[in-house]
């Protein structure tokens, strides 16, 4: 199904606002996700980047990988800085200090900068209703500092601060349901996306930019270095995450849920976990336990999309 749409790849905007020469790891899914999202931004966009992998790989003085106006300040404040950029432009346009035009403000951050340290600033900005798009590129741990667990790390995954050992089997808590937290702010648009479904991703980013008010998109971003997998399967992992129900793709427009893709039958979770060494310590019964919960959550989501 995806392959059919793939043939339309030549229709994609050839401009690369996130230029080559960045220093992301080999096979980086997050760099791919940022590249695809940036294609949807258009030239009239200002990017506000939280500290994290994508900031470090793209902004070593005196260079930048960005063709767009770009600002990085700190780890936890991307949403607050974006608030400031948005109101700064708005006020100056209203007062005739700069020309009146549509300028997109996009904040980008990793899962650590979104789920954990940046959650308060994000919540504040969503609640205040700034007209901006926030994209969380979710690689499920603090990869920039050396794969420490975040609240986006899936249950059971081994990281350097949730290691698998004799007394503990990796991450002992469930992935925080961040999109649901965004939805609870009653914002016009929330979605999950993946670099493995590029057209879906690009369309969602465009939609997020087009709504008036805040939008939140969370993008699955495979990390071969942190997940300890082969560098050539980043895209395949993204597909398997969707096909197993581990990372469902959906959107919530004005509170209305819509599944982007529902597999006829979910694949066994082990097809996904067996390719990543962050899960290799898990015994079959542990995988089955995790799978049961993921399937339950997936079904609940599908039901929500049906009834709302």
């Amino acid at each position: 199904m995806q392959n059919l749409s793939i043939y339309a790849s030549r229709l994609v905007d050839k401009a690369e606002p996130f230029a080559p020469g960045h220093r992301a790891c080999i096979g980086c899914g997050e760099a791919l996700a940022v590249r695809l999202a940036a294609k949807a931004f258009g030239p009239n966009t200002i990017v506000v980047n939280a500290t994290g992998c994508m900031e470090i790989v793209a902004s070593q003085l005196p260079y930048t990988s960005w063709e767009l106006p770009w600002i990085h300040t700190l780890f936890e404040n991307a949403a607050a800085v974006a608030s400031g950029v948005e109101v700064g432009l708005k006020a100056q346009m209203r007062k005739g200090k700069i020309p009146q035009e549509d300028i997109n403000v996009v904040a980008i951050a990793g899962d650590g900068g979104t789920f954990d340290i940046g959650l308060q600033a994000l919540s504040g900005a969503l609640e205040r209703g700034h007209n901006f798009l926030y994209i969380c590129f979710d690689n499920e741990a603090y990869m920039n500092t050396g794969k420490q667990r975040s609240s986006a790390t899936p249950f059971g995954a081994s990281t350097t601060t949730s290691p698998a050992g004799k007394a503990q089997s990796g991450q002992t808590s469930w992935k925080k349901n961040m999109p649901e937290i965004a939805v609870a702010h009653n914002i016009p648009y929330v979605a999950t996306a993946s670099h493995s479904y590029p057209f879906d991703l690009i369309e969602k980013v465009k939609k997020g930019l087009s709504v008036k008010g805040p939008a939140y998109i969370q993008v699955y971003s495979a990390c071969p270095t942190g997940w300890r997998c082969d560098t050539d399967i980043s895209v395949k992992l993204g597909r398997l995450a969707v096909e197993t129900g581990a990372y469902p793709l959906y959107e919530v427009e004005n509170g209305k849920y819509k599944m982007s893709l529902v597999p006829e039958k979910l694949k066994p979770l082990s097809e996904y976990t067996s390719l990543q060494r962050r899960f290799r310590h898990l015994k079959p019964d542990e995988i089955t336990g995790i799978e049961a919960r993921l399937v339950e959550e997936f079904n609940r989501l599908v039901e929500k999309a049906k009834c709302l």
Partner: protein
Amino acid sequence: MAKAEHELTWKDIEIGAVVTEPGNAAIYKTGDWRSQKPDYDFKRCIKCGVCYIFCPEACIHQNKAGFFEADFYYCKGCGICAYECPTRVITMREETEK
């Protein structure tokens, strides 16, 4: 083009250390990170562009004949293009001399 970082004096630093040349990181060569290199059998290529879409480096372009191939100045040799290619045009081979 900006001076390389080790050549910069304090006088070369713009106010607030801003960078005024958009996309100038493109001078940075990432191709020498590569341990594997894509090798193309264009006879099988259907010019679908899957490789182009999925390249994290944004380094795959269409050549004059319309085939997609990587710019080896940037290609880090991840192998995603080879893995995703529906007609198996690309084989990853060990990098030899650079």
